[in-house]
C-alpha cells in the first residue's frame, strides 16, 4: 500500500479533505473499513436478539445516540486542534436549564428561547476558547473548571429543581415530533443528521476546518504563517459550544424538562466516540464520519447489551472489551497500510 502513488491521497482524505476522485473513493473505502467494526457489532446483536433489529429499536438507538453524538461532533473540532473539552457534559445541562429560564421563567417565544439556549452554549465555548487561547490555560484545566462552574450554575439558576416547559408545550416536539408518518422517526434524529452534515462541511470544506487541522498539526508553524491562531481557537471552541447548545436543547426537549443535574461523564463518552472514530487526541488528524461511527458504536453497544438483558454489571465489562478490540483492529489496519 505504501508504494502506491496515491497513498498520499488516502492519507489526506483521512483528514477529511479528499484529494481528487481516486482519493475520495479510497477515503470512503477506508471509512467503510472502520465501519466494519460497527457492522459486525450490529450483526452480532441482530443475531443474538430478535428485538434488536427492529425499526423501533433502531430508532431508539439513534435517539440514544443523538445527544452524545452532537456533543461528539462539536468536540471533534476541539480535539483536532489538540485540545480537549471536559465541559460539554455539564455545559449541555446548563444550556437546557437556560432554555427553561428563557421559555418558562421569562416567557420568551419558542424560537427565541431555543436560539438563546444555543447561543448560550456558544458563550460557554467562547469562555473556554478565551481561557485557552488568551489566558494560555491548558485546555484540560480550563474546561475542567468550566465543567465544575457549569454544573454549579445549572443548580443555582434552576433552584436545584427541574424546570418544566409549561408555557411552551411544543418544546418537547423539537426532539420527539414524529416526522415520518407511520414510523417513530423523531425530529431530533433528523437534527442529529443535519448537524453531522454541517460539521462535515465545516471541517472539510471551509477555512475554519483547514485552520482546525493546521493548528492541531503544528500550532507554531500556523502562527508563523500569519494565521491569527488565538482568534481561530476562540472561534473553534465557540462553534463546539454551539453544538453543546443544540445538544442541551434536544436533551431538555426529550425529557420535556430541564434537569439541572447529570451530564457528568457524558464528556468522556463523547470524547471516547471521537477517539474510537480515529481522531487523534494529539491533534491534526480526524474526521466527522469517524466520530459518527464512534458514536454509533457506543450507542449500539449500550443498547444491544440491554436488549440482550446482560446483567448490568457485565455490561460495562463488555463495552470496555469491545472498545479495546475495535480500536486495536483499527490500529492494525492503519499500521498495515
Amino acid at each position, binding site marked *: 500500500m505504501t508504494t502506491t502513488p496515491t497513498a498520499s491521497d488516502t492519507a489526506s482524505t483521512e483528514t477529511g479533505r479528499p484529494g481528487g476522485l481516486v482519493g475520495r473513493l479510497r477515503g470512503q473505502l477506508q471509512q467503510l473499513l472502520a465501519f466494519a467494526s460497527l457492522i459486525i457489532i450490529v450483526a452480532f446483536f441482530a443475531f443474538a436478539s*430478535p*428485538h434488536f433489529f*427492529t*425499526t*423501533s*429499536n433502531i430508532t*431508539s438507538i439513534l*435517539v*440514544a445516540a443523538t*445527544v452524545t453524538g452532537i456533543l461528539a461532533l462539536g468536540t471533534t473540532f476541539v480535539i483536532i486542534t489538540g485540545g480537549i473539552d471536559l465541559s460539554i457534559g455539564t455545559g449541555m445541562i446548563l444550556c437546557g436549564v437556560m432554555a427553561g429560564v428563557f421559555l418558562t421563567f421569562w416567557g420568551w417565544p419558542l424560537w427565541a428561547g431555543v436560539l438563546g439556549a444555543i447561543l448560550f452554549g456558544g458563550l460557554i465555548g467562547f469562555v473556554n476558547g478565551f481561557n485557552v487561547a488568551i489566558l494560555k490555560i491548558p485546555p484540560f484545566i480550563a474546561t475542567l473548571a468550566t465543567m465544575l462552574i457549569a454544573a454549579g450554575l445549572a*443548580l443555582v439558576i434552576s433552584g*436545584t*429543581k*427541574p424546570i*418544566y416547559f409549561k408555557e411552551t408545550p411544543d418544546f*418537547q416536539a423539537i426532539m*420527539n415530533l414524529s416526522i415520518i408518518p*407511520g*414510523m*417513530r422517526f423523531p425530529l431530533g434524529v433528523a437534527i442529529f443528521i443535519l448537524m453531522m452534515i454541517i460539521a462535515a462541511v465545516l471541517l472539510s470544506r471551509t477555512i475554519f476546518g483547514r485552520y482546525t487541522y493546521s493548528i492541531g498539526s503544528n500550532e507554531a508553524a500556523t502562527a508563523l504563517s500569519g494565521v491569527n491562531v488565538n482568534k481561530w481557537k476562540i472561534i473553534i471552541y465557540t462553534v463546539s459550544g454551539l453544538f453543546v447548545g443544540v445538544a442541551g436543547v434536544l*436533551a431538555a426537549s*426529550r*425529557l*420535556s*424538562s430541564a*434537569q*439541572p*443535574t*447529570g451530564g457528568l*461523564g457524558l464528556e468522556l463518552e463523547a470524547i471516547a466516540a471521537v477517539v474510537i472514530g480515529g481522531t487523534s487526541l494529539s491533534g491534526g488528524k480526524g474526521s466527522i464520519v469517524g466520530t459518527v461511527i464512534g458514536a454509533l458504536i457506543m450507542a449500539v453497544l*449500550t*443498547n444491544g447489551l*440491554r*436488549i440482550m*438483558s446482560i446483567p*448490568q454489571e457485565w455490561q460495562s465489562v463488555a463495552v470496555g472489551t469491545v472498545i479495546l478490540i475495535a480500536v486495536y483492529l483499527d490500529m492494525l489496519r492503519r499500521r498495515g497500510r
Partner: protein
Amino acid sequence: AAGGGDAGGGDAGGGEASGDKPYIAIVSKGFQHQFWQAVKQGAEEAAEEFDVEITFEGPDTEADVDQQIQMLQTALDKGPDAIGFAALDSQAAGPLLQQAKDSNIPVIAFDSGVDSDIPVTTASTDNKAAAAEAAKQMAELIGHAGKVALVVHDQTSVTGVDRRDGFVEYMEENEPDIEIVDTQYGGGDQAKSADLAKAIIAANPDLKGLYGSNEGSAIGVVQAVKELDLAGKLTVVGFDSGKAQIDAINEGLMAGAITQNPVGIGYETVKAAVAAINGDKVEKTIDTGFFWYDKSNIDSEEIKAVIYE
C-alpha cells in the same frame, strides 16, 4: 403503532429467553446501592413464586434521568408483558408511559411513585413521612434542643429532596429549639460523605446531631464520628440499612435509623404486575411502609424482615 406490533410480538414470544413465561421489565432508580439490590431481591423472590421472567436495571446515579429514560425505552422495545418503573422524574417519562399505555403494557410504579394516572398501581413508601419520623426520633434523642445538620445523598432526586424536606419541615414545625445549621450533599458516597460530615462538625463544634439520608450518607456520618472520636457525643440518625449501619447501631455509634421495606417493595411490584397481566384488579396504591429501628428492636422479627445486610 410500531410499538404495538412489538408488544404483540413480545406477548407471542413470551418475552426473553424462556418460552412462555410472562416477562416483566423493571426499571428502577438505581442498581448499585444495597437498597436497590434489596428491591431486586424481593422482585426475584416474587418472580420465582409467580413463575415469571424479570429483568432489573437502573441508572448509575439517581441524578441520571436521561439514562433512565433510555433504559425505559429499551425495556419497551423488548416488548414486555408488564413494566415496573420507579421514575426519577415522572414528567420526563411522560411520552414513554404514554407509549406503554398505547401498547397496552401495564405499568406498575414503585418506590416514590409516578406522577401520572397511567400506572395501574403504585407500591411505595412515603419518603417525606419516613424522614419526618427520623426527625422526630432525633429530636427526642437530643432533648428537643440544639444544632443538627443533614448529610443528604442527592440534591435533586425525589428521594433526596423528600428525605431532606421531610426532616427539615418536621423540625421547623414541631421543634422551635432545634436549629438546622447545615445541609450538604455527598452523592451517597461513603468517603465523600465522611469528609463533608467532618467539615460540618469542625465548623459547628456544638453540633448535637447528624442525619444521613441514605445508606452511604449514614455510614459516612458514622465514619466521621469514628475518625473524630466523637462516639457518644454526637447523635447520629440514619436511613436504610446494610451491615455497616446495623453494626453501628449495635456498637452505639448510631442511635437508630429508618428503614423502608425494599424487599417488600420489589415483591409487591412483581406481584401487582402479575395481577395486571392476568387482568385481575389491583389496588391503586400499595403502601409498603417504613420502620424506625434502634438497638432495642433491631433483633425483633418484625425489623429483621425489613432490613438487609
